[in-house]
């Protein structure tokens, strides 16, 4: 099964995007391959519970790789694939071994995947000091992924102030990549992301 990985800095909105995008493509529930919380018995979430329990205002909310099973209707057929939430990758060396292990697993997953959705926070792209700020890690993710998988940058949180300027900055920084403006909150850009995925699922 093809694997579409959402990767990026901490707190840019990866998890919220996965949850709302799954709902958008018409899934009834969010079904993870393994439990994202690490326990064995819980692998199915209602969208409400996923938003309440898996999304958080602080960095490093997600600390493990979490592949969800998605189906997209294409014409008369249905395409099944994994859309995989990952732990946000921070600059430098993180002090918490649990966080580091989640990040390492995320990079391992990135190595083997077919489609990379590289999410950045457009509203904080240039904020000095913010964990979400576009930085070295983003540049490395782009350089690594673009040549070996279907690759798009999702400039997220476009509903927030400052995001337009951030988007401009991101486009200039990555002139050769496709940049899709999104809002995991409002659903902006979901149609384009869906089209991008479908195109590369063949």
């Amino acid at each position, binding site marked *: 099964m093809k694997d579409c990985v959402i990767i990026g800095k901490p707190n840019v909105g990866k998890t919220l995007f996965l949850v709302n995008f799954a709902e958008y493509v018409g899934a009834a529930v969010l079904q993870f391959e393994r439990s994202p919380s690490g326990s064995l018995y819980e692998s199915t979430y209602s969208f409400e519970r996923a938003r309440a329990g898996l999304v958080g205002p602080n960095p490093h909310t997600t600390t493990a790789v979490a592949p969800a099973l998605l189906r997209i209707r294409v014409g008369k057929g249905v395409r099944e694939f994994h859309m995989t939430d990952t732990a946000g990758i921070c*600059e430098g060396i993180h*002090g918490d071994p649990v966080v580091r292990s989640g990040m390492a697993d995320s*990079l391992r997953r990135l190595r083997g995947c077919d489609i990379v959705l590289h999410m950045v926070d457009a509203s904080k792209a240039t904020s000095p000091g913010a964990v979400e700020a576009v930085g070295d890690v983003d540049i490395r993710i782009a350089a690594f992924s673009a040549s070996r998988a279907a690759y798009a940058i999702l400039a997220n949180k476009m509903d927030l102030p400052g995001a337009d300027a951030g988007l401009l900055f991101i486009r200039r920084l990555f002139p050769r990549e496709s940049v899709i403006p999104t809002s995991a909150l409002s659903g902006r850009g979901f149609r384009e992301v869906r089209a991008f995925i479908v195109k590369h699922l063949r």
Partner: protein
Amino acid sequence: MGITVCSPEEALDMFEEGRIPASEVFRVLGDRELRGTTQPRVQAPVQPPDPLGELDSMIGLGQVKDLVRELRAFVEIQRRRLRAGLAAEPIVLHMIFRGNPGTGKTTVARILGRVFREMGVLEKGHLVEVERADLVGEYIGHTAQKTRDQVKRALGGILFIDEAYSLARGGEKDFGKEAIDTLVKAMEDHKENLVLILAGYPDEMDRFLWTNPGLRSRFPLHLDFRDYSLAELLDIGRMMFAARQYRLTPDAEEALEECLRRSIAVETIPANARLVRNIVEKAIRKQALRLVARRELERDDLVTITAREIREAAGD
């Protein structure tokens, strides 16, 4: 900096263990996988301890830590902007450090040097620590020469001037003014490769900058080093004992807290890391005195510091 041979799997393991940052993993992944998997192993440098990690491990200094992180991000993004053909803010990194003695100013300056070197802002990132006597000479022309010599030593790194206001102490005729003028000129001449830090007591720094507006505008970054709180001083003490492989009994902990509380109350003694270090080192000597007469010593005896030693150490 050591070099190790490293496969992608090993790089990922090292990342997981906290020995290298993600960017280094990508370097290894990229090198290896772009060339195909039949390639032999590639080399990845083992990073020296992360200077930011070292800063984080210092007790307190919340505001300073935030600013250093902010600065790092700022410089990074300005450089990326330049590379992307965007207008970039000029990067002026001259700083004012305001704080009482023993609040970590020099240590932070030294770490900053390494951070800047890592970022490629400074070529060497070393710290040259000077005071008035190193800059000011005895006759006309002597001062400019001495100051230029210190600047030369500091090129590629940080020139740290402690109690900077002492340069302005003697009034108009004093050679200190010549030193200031020479420094200002050096800041212009070596914009790309020198960071100046003026440090000293908060009030005196304020007065100094107030009376030298030309200087003030050249130092955009101000860091305040707060005095340590009682809890922070205690943490520092615990850390110092632990680093020397000593352990405090619960009574000794209480005694240490009591001594520090008293020192904070007596304002004539600055309650800072130096005070704690003095107590720690004296207590260790007192413990040795207590033990040396004894015949049998367990490992436990050797590492334990009691309340008595703390009180004796703080007493003299």
